[in-house]
């Protein structure tokens, strides 16, 4: 029997409109042949045609015969909502053929992927010794050498540009057109340093903005200069920090190198929350899911990207699962992927308080240590215990801990959080970025509730 909550299902919806549409269909009158087994949910939804909807419970993947390009589609959302709210409506039974065959196909594909993956890692280990791969390896080495050159030239150019900027003074920047920043960012993309390009693009949004923008811009320029300085001297850095510096400039770490160099941590991981950002003007969506180790208290962030609104793996906020995570190499490893998940079933919903910081001060100490290891760290997931939300008319809400210390929340309003707290302290989970906390989940009165997006 499925024991997820309505809120968790809504968190899986790709956007508000499919959540809304799903809610409308989430009542038995729209359905026939509703059923469930240990592996799956299924049902046929009466829309403009009869759509066959099935959900693989091991991954919460949805397959529907409707033509929608959203994943999950409204029928999938509706079926899960129905199962969450009125499980009795879905009879426990053997899956019908159209469900069983899909499950079987999924199992075969998964097995194939796995053997391909292990074959790939096998090749990687053998590669230095395999003669046949030698020409390919040398071609790859040439490509890397060429890119090293390009990046180095890009950084030289950027540093000159930064110096010019400082000589002229920041006061004149407000008069610059958007192209001033865009062109410089484009040059860095050409130099294959997309990380630096992103920093320049972010500066364009700061100039002239409300508040003390010159200080903010100076901070960003300075940190960028520190980064190029570190990159120039990367051979003198310790190897873990060198990994960070190269990733921040824009070198990606291929999956096999993550496997080879990244550390592994086994724990019972709590999905404390997730959020999705969209890149302006592009259809790329980035999902960040924060996990917190129940034993290690360690935060980890799983990133997924999509261009058509489907994320490969569905992480349900508020579940606990036993897994090994593989971290991207770095001085304060945060980004991770699930390396292997134990067979033991997921605990559907967090029922006990998350491991977290008793005070805001204690969390900020962890933050300071993290910055000490990796000075460009831009975000950190956390669970703050016993904090009270303080509403505001101006979208600048706060949370306060028992000692009276306060942190600002991301601009917006948090009525649901306030309703859940009722003026009493709650355990708040979210992402701190050095300026404000983005609330992602809350634990109160023995239950977890997701807070981001449709559930905000």
């Amino acid at each position: 029997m499925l024991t997820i909550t309505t809120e968790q299902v809504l968190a899986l919806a790709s956007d508000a409109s499919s959540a809304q549409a799903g809610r409308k269909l989430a009542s038995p009158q729209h359905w026939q042949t509703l059923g469930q087994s240990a592996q799956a949910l299924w049902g046929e939804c009466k829309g403009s045609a009869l759509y066959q909807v099935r959900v693989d419970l091991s991954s919460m993947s949805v397959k529907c015969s409707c033509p929608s390009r959203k994943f999950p589609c409204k029928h999938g959302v509706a079926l899960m909502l129905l199962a969450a709210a009125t499980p009795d409506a879905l009879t426990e039974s053997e899956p019908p053929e159209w469900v069983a065959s899909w499950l079987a196909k999924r199992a075969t594909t998964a097995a194939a992927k796995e053997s391909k993956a292990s074959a790939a890692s096998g090749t990687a280990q053998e590669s230095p010794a395999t003669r046949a791969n030698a020409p390919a390896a040398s071609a790859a080495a040439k490509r890397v050498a060429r890119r090293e050159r390009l990046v180095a030239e890009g950084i030289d150019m950027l540093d000159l540009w930064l110096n010019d900027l400082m000589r002229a003074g920041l006061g004149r920047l407000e008069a610059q057109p958007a192209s001033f920043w865009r062109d410089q960012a484009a040059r860095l993309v050409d130099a294959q340093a997309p990380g630096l390009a992103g920093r320049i693009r972010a500066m364009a949004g700061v100039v002239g903005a409300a508040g003390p923008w010159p200080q903010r811009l100076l901070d960003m320029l300075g940190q960028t200069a520190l980064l190029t300085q570190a990159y120039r001297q990367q051979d003198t850095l310790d190897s873990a920090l060198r990994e960070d510096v190269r990733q921040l400039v824009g070198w990606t770490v291929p999956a096999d190198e993550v496997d080879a160099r990244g550390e592994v941590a086994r724990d019972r991981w709590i999905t404390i929350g997730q959020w999705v950002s969209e890149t302006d003007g592009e259809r790329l969506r980035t999902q960040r899911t924060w996990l917190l180790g129940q034993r290690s208290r360690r935060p980890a962030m799983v990133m997924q990207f999509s261009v058509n609104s489907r994320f490969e793996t569905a992480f349900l906020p508020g579940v606990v699962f036993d897994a090994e995570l593989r971290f991207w190499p770095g001085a304060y490893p945060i980004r991770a992927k699930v390396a292997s998940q134990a067979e033991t079933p997921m605990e559907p919903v967090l029922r006990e308080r998350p491991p977290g910081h008793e005070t805001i001060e204690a969390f900020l100490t962890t933050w300071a240590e993290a910055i000490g290891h990796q000075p460009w760290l831009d975000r950190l997931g956390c669970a703050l215990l016993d904090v009270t939300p303080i509403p505001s008319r101006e979208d600048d809400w706060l949370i306060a801990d028992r000692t009276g210390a306060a942190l600002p929340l991301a601009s917006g309003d948090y009525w649901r959080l306030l309703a859940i707290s009722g003026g009493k302290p709650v355990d708040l989970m979210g992402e701190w970025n050095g300026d404000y906390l983005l609330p992602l989940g809350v634990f109160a009165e023995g239950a977890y509730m997701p807070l981001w997006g449709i559930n905000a």
Partner: protein
Amino acid sequence: MTGETDLLRAALVGAHDGGAPSTDSPVDALPLASGNRERDLLLRAGAWATYRRAGYLPSFAPETPSIAPEETRPVCSEAAVAMLVNLFSNRRNDLLPEAFERLRVAGLRLPPSLLPLALDSAPAELRAAAVPALGARGIWLAQFNPSWRWAATRLAGNATPDEAQVIWEEGATSQRVEVLRRLRASEPEQARELLADVWKREKADTRVEFLATLSLNLGPADIPMLELALTDRAERVRATATDSLMALPESAFALRMRRRGEAMFTYAGGRLDVNPPADVDEAWTSDGLSAIPAKGGQRREILFETLRRVPPEHWEAQFGAAPDALLDALDDSPWRATVLLAWSAAAARFGSARWAAPLWRRWLSASSAMRAEAREGLSVVGRLLMPLLPRADVGAFALALIASPEQYSDLSLAEGLSLLPRPWSDAVADAYLASLRDFTQNLQPDATSVEPWGATLAPALVGLPYSRFPHALESFTFPTKKTWQITQFEQSLKAFAAGIRLRAHIIQEIPL
């Protein structure tokens, strides 16, 4: 912290001679010199930013919100929550009242996480019904959001005496009214004294709202205050005062109204003659009757405005006759329609159950010309009298209407059905469903209208009793060839069935 401004100032005007300005922090000691003054400034700014970022200091929290009072009601089930989300999202304002009413009767509340959605989506006409389901938490929550003020008003009702005092002195009018209403419920005398204290200082609109609270626990002791209000400059205040005074038979006002009415009647030999005056004097105007128009129809207005303020029972005592006898005695009167309407309004106002059925029967048997003369259709009179009618009269009316839907020119079948108290009786529901089925079955393939039945689905959806849902959900037969109007009606019946299933959900998920 001067370092910060020095560094920023240097960056704003452009780096010139000299090294990077000091930050007065350990950052100055970092070996970051590059030999280029712009670069030096940048690197120090970067280190200084990182230093501040790592050393982020929390602010001091302003006062945290008060703690929400403990809930006294248990929360509704997860399935009920899903169902309510469905109703809110689909804006089923026709079905939400039943859900809220069942929550209220079952003593259940919404879970906190649903409150913002409920507060945002409760339509204005359902707000009063929604309030109990919001629980203590919802009412507490509403105080923080200006657009939820309608619910926060109730907070005044839960206030402690000290808090109530503060609200009374400083609160918004709606909150002050709530404080007064609460006090009136438990300490009527004290509430009236509170009102008298502030009476002269309040604006007319506020006086109207405050004065209206006296209708709760109304008693003879309120007469002096009400009579003071009857001398008010504002007509709205005077009208509010008369609304209460007419319900106090011992008041001078009620006596004056009775005397005026008595002067218009002569009852002798089984005949009730009606003779309203042609004009009113100063005293009538000061009794709040100035709404009477100066010309044409004036006598009718004087008659109506007087009689509607006198309890119908007075005429039984006055003339020693039962309602039926008095109504029969009116038969030949040219004023019959007006008297009937005024007595119907008075019966509704004073809850005169014994008058409801005799009045209603006369309305039903009256000619449409007479009803037209009363200037109000059956649907208006029905709204006045139906709540007071014995079940047998309601049933007889409904069955007759269903059997012969076009018998009243001023009352459609749908209007008639929406007058019925809900839920309908089993007999009425059965007759309705059987006739509806009959109607669809016998529709001519070329029919271009589905009235009067088409419009009845909305009142039937909210009126049918649960016991008849299975019957309502049985399929309907339609001609195979059909006009678009019939096709549309078929669609409406599908929506009707979906609505019935939703109601079944409401009833099952919120058991009483």
